[in-house]
């Protein structure tokens, strides 16, 4: 094993490999920072370029894109409330309020540092706990996925803050939107109204851009003469103080653990991991009321978690040959092209390659941290741009980003409709986070519940009484009841 570690390190320390890693991180940062472009798209578009490279150089570039895109997605989430990638949705909940308070520098600094912490801790998990995590993930069947999705959806209540019913209603709208398209089991078209473009369902990226980008622009236009219209220009410091590190630590640990675990579960990526980690950090925190209003704990937990999912996804990919998320699915293809078969035999036959990947993620994490910290101050100058210029830019990049996703005009209209709906929901004080959560988790919940029922021949009790499912069901009940219990307690204390 020591020889594998040294061989892996030696492979990474070649200047060509480091150069491709740097290039990948830079390209990934561009893909992550532009709303509408995702890490998956970046890796998919640039995979053909790696066919002419060695396995190490190709992996360096692709992993660089992956590791660069996820932290960079947090930059527009913090500065303009538009998540650059789906994984950074939860980062906007506290990052943007921090920027509005004049602490954009600190928010960007926390994003860069916690992203590196997330990637480094998850890669440590990968090196030490690869097999136990992967075998836990392998125990997930349709019933367990249903349990996980149900638990994720129950987090809507917590994400909604004080407006629990409004938040749950927004979540229902997201779930309703997720039913558009072909039925996952019978392929019967639902709510497509004759439009073939909707047979594949409603893409959540244009919805996300509309809800958080266009809606935000419209809200700001409507409030342009009020005090809320212009965020304070002060960037503040970038580096968190020691007391702030201490405050963030529990959330970061929660984010690292949950992000890695959720990332290891196939098809459950950083977006779900970050939302779950944010909510759990909120519950563990003594400053619950600050979450969603610029909490550094919330931002730390979500930034750590969405990046920790990378190590989790890599764990499942390398040990079992099963993709943990869409990016690792493409990476499996790239590895196969280079004659490398991911799976249990990889550790026996190409142990050095596993450690090459480990060291590549370590170097990528360090690179993105340095770039993120050095770039925080110039990046935060975005807030100095006159509001109308910024609004025009968000509208344009949001529109083109939505179109670029599938080269489909329908996605642009979806973004437009989501923006208008989001604007009215925002004005009515309805939280938008649960809507996206419903849209992401809806298909996973429906398809797996129905698949599980088919497998158990309609035995509902047999499906729901499996140990992992039962655990998720109990967690779901707690998750739904806890905000109500807390509210009652606070009411009693006030009385």
């Amino acid at each position: 094993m020591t020889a594998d570690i040294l061989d892996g390190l030696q492979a990474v320390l070649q200047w060509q490999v480091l150069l491709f890693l740097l290039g990948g991180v830079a390209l990934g940062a561009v893909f992550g920072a532009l709303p509408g472009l995702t890490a998956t798209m970046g890796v998919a578009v640039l995979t053909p370029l790696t066919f002419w490279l060695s396995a190490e150089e190709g992996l360096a570039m692709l992993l660089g894109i992956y590791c660069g895109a996820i932290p960079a997605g947090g930059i527009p989430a913090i500065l303009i409330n538009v998540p650059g990638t789906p994984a950074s949705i939860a980062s906007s909940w506290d990052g943007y309020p921090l920027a509005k308070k004049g602490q954009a520098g600190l928010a960007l600094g926390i994003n860069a540092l916690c992203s590196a912490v997330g990637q480094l801790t998850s890669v440590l998990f990968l090196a030490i706990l690869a097999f136990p995590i992967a075998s836990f993930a392998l125990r997930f069947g349709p019933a367990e996925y249903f349990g996980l999705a149900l638990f994720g959806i129950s987090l809507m209540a917590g994400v909604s803050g004080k407006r629990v019913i409004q938040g749950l209603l927004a979540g229902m709208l997201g779930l309703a939107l997720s039913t558009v398209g072909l039925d996952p089991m019978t392929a019967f078209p639902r709510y497509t109204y004759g439009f073939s473009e909707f047979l594949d369902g409603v893409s959540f990226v244009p919805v996300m851009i509309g809800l958080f980008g266009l809606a935000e622009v419209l809200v700001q236009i409507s409030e342009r003469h009020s005090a809320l219209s212009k965020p304070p220009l002060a960037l503040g410091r970038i580096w968190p103080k020691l007391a702030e590190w201490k405050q963030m630590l529990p959330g970061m640990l929660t984010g690292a653990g949950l992000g890695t675990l959720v990332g290891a579960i196939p098809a459950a990526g950083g977006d779900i991991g970050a939302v779950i980690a944010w909510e759990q950090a909120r519950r563990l925190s003594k400053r619950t009321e600050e979450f969603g209003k610029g909490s550094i704990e919330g931002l730390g937990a979500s930034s750590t978690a969405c990046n920790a999912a990378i190590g989790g996804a890599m764990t499942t990919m390398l040990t079992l040959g099963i993709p943990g998320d869409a990016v690792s699915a493409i990476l499996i293809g790239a590895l196969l092209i280079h004659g490398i078969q991911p799976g249990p035999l990889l550790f026996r036959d190409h142990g050095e390659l596993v450690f090459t990947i480990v060291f590549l993620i370590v170097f990528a994490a360090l690179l993105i941290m340095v770039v993120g910290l050095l770039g925080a101050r110039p990046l935060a100058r975005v807030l100095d741009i006159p509001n109308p210029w910024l609004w025009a830019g968000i509208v344009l990049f949001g529109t083109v980003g939505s179109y670029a996703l599938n080269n489909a005009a329908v996605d642009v209209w979806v973004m437009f409709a989501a923006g208008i709906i989001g604007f009215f929901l925002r004005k009515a004080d309805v939280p938008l986070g649960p809507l996206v959560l419903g849209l992401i988790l809806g298909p996973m919940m429906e398809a797996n519940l129905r698949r599980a029922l088919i497998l158990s021949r309609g035995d509902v009790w047999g499906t729901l009484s499996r140990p992992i499912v039962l655990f998720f069901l109990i967690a779901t009940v707690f998750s739904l009841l806890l905000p109500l219990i807390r509210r009652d307690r606070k009411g009693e204390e006030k009385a």
Partner: protein
Amino acid sequence: MRSNLVVAAAFLLLGIYLAASAAILPAGIGGLPGPGFFPQVIGSVTVLLAVGLLVQTARRREPGSFALANKGAVAGAIGLMFLYLLLWGTGWFALRTAVFLTLLLRFLGQRWGTSVLVGVALTAAVVGAFQYGLRISLE
């Protein structure tokens, strides 16, 4: 405007529509849920939650507020974008986009000169990044 009441009414209608439309989707086979099962559950829960919001609003007498200032500016921005999207895919992307952005910026109170400059610069950035950088056709 009483926002909670409007939200509750809108979601009540959505829930009723979902539940009703799901009922006409094909039924499942062999006692297993069919395509209408999930929308029906969502519709029913939405109705329950909307009624819950109505009751809560009535009990607490907190109807919420819906302050919509600058209605003209918001409607104008939405209208301009609607027109721009109507012309999507008709060619001349760069020209259409530059004109749209100039009009939008002018509408938002910028001077004509500034609007043209910023509109052209933003268009050039998008065309450069997407059309030439990523080879994504925007026409």
